């Protein structure tokens, strides 16, 4: 008889062994999956996991892909640590993209040095506003934050689609739903020749470090951690839960907003209806893969970026259908999160019947 038992202490062995176990299981099941469709498992795993980092162009693109995931995930990590179940990074990202793009279009004929910082601030502010409304509704009316943030994702998406079909549409664009291309004054500078790595990636990595600093080195971070671990204790200690909730939500909103504006004035260079392929949702996975630790989020974001890019490369190099690639990604993420279960739980084997 096998039973699941909660551990009294988190297992320090499993903390290290869990990801290794997960990768081993993924290699086995992934190998079976690829063999089943007649592809070489070793080649498939190489293309999916190694090739995305094989040359300088791909490494650059990995950073481009990582940026928005990381910005969103750092904010979410802090929210979840404080028991604020913010599912709204996607909406906050889209709001940032919309607000930032509106500002970038305002500066379309400008060469002012202030154009870029003001555009970035517009994106950040838009993301914060988008996080502020559900926060207010929760704190004032005790509404369910999960539901309101999800709904705000849809509102942001439709607002963006409306804007790109209407007021922000390129007047010379034959009616297609896209804004004009932004001018250089509002585009994020790229850091290397022949690469799309832009200033936004620096912001993203900094956000991980700042998030870690806040959480680990400040009194505010201490309060967040206590609040998440034991809410009654935090209240007994007199921590102001409203202040903490506002802080983590606005922090997350500002980072997601920055992610959104950085996509539009970075690699895309205009506002399009599909700014985000779901970065705000994927960032939830990134946050948990990083075990809600901002520095862990950096590693997790790199990892997610690699498997997304590997998915495209697997189609190009080996003709593996996207459905199989998605199954592989699902297997991998499932094992990674499932194995973490054994940090706090264990299986007990016994022949005795329970009494």
């Amino acid at each position, binding site marked *: 008889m096998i039973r699941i038992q909660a551990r009294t202490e988190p297992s320090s062995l499993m903390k290290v062994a869990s990801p290794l176990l997960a990768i081993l299981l993924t290699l086995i099941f992934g190998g079976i999956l690829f*063999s089943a469709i007649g592809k*070489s*498992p*070793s*080649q498939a795993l190489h293309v999916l996991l190694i090739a995305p980092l094989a040359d300088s*162009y791909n490494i650059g*693109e990995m950073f*481009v*892909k990582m940026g928005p995931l990381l910005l969103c995930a750092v904010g979410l990590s802090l929210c979840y640590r404080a028991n604020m179940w913010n599912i709204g990074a996607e909406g906050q990202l889209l709001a940032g993209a919309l607000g930032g793009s509106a500002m970038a279009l305002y500066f379309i004929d400008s060469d002012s040095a202030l154009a870029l910082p003001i555009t970035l601030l517009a994106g950040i502010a838009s993301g914060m506003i988008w996080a502020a409304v559900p926060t207010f509704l929760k704190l004032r009316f005790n509404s369910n934050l999960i539901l309101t943030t999800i709904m705000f994702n849809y509102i942001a998406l439709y607002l963006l*689609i409306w804007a790109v*079909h*209407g007021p922000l549409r390129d007047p010379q664009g*034959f*009616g*297609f*739903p*896209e804004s004009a*291309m932004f001018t250089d004054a509002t585009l994020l500078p790229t850091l290397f020749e*022949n690469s*799309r790595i832009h200033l936004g990636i620096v912001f993203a990595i900094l956000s991980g470090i700042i998030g870690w600093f806040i959480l680990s080195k400040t009194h505010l971070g201490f309060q967040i951690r206590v609040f998440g671990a034991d809410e009654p204790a935090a209240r007994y200690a007199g921590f102001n839960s409203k202040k903490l909730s506002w802080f983590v939500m606005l922090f997350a909103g500002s980072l997601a907003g920055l992610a959104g504006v950085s*996509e539009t004035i*970075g*690699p*895309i*260079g*205009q506002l*399009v*209806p*599909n*700014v*985000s*392929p779901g970065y705000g949702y994927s960032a939830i996975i990134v946050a948990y893969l990083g075990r809600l630790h901002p520095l862990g989020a950096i590693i997790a974001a790199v990892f997610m970026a690699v498997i997304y*890019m590997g998915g*495209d*490369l697997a*189609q*190009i*190099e080996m*003709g593996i*259908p*996207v*459905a199989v690639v998605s199954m592989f990604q699902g297997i991998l993420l499932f094992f990674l999160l499932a194995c973490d279960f054994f940090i706090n739980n264990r299986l007990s084997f016994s022949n005795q019947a329970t009494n």
Partner: protein
Amino acid sequence: MKLKSLLVSLGLLAGAAAVQAEEPLKVGFIYVGPVGDLGWSYEHDMGRKGLEEYFGDKVKTTFVENVPEGADAERVITQLAKAGNDLIFTTSFGFMNPTVKVAKRFPNVKFEHATGYKLDKNLGTYVLRTYEGRYISGVAAGMMTKTNTIGYIGSFPIPEVIRDINAAYMGAKSVNPDVKMKIVWANTWYDPGKETDAANALMDQGVDVMLQHTDSPAPLIAAEKRGLRAIGQASDQSKFAPEAHIFSVRDDWTPYYVKRVQAVMDGTWKAQDFWGGFQDDMLTLASINPNLPADVRAKIDATHDAIKSGAFKPFTGPIKDNKGNIAVPADHSLTDVELAQVNWYVEGITDEIPR
């Protein structure tokens, strides 16, 4: 098993080496949807398969499906170019600016972008004269409607869709002076749920024949349930609605892809803005339902033949817009450049284009 897969890989390598000796032309495709959408991306993939069938070992095709029209597109197109593809087809409007950027960086690779309007030395565009099929659909709908009310499910209010709405209405009006048209915007290219809602909304308003500018068979299925009629879009959708289906206007990209690949092989490829319709065999009427009355069938065939032979062009003046202005003067047929800019409804459509 390992030895076996090694042997298989060796065999593949040997096979690859043999093919390499003949230097096949490498052709890449990027699709916005999954190849299983049974609509737009599916038909492009049928075109790719047609290309392989026609040229055999002389071409090697690669495709990447389900690529979002955001920052990812530029990376995937670049990776296709880096993988040594000589000719790359980017098959959705949202890939336009990424294709322009990549084309600049790979001057020796040839690019073709579907439905866009930006050209370069190594970047051509191609688009279907879908309005031709839409005119015939209008003729059929105008004859089949008993309520004198036909419906149109719009995707996005871009010139292609506005143009097709006009063509459909003119076709219907030519056989039924009392016909009215109701338009619902689904704001998507492919979303079975939303398309079903749009179809039901139209049928609730008395529409008994539906045309759709979205790609899923959902509206046909909805029409079948109510015993009403509908026309298939992009691919042969007859099997989804055996009774309701009038015919499908099928996109056939194979003739174009074959022609362009041949041009690259012959060294005669030049960037161009190409429009293809019935005359080029890029549009066909698929599965005309045997349950249609004989006079309807005869009219469909006659209209089809007139368009295919070039004897009839739908956008030939005099045509007034629905504000009373002359949109096309007498004895003039809209040129391709003018067709690309249609942003008015034809006289008789009692609706406004969403702005």
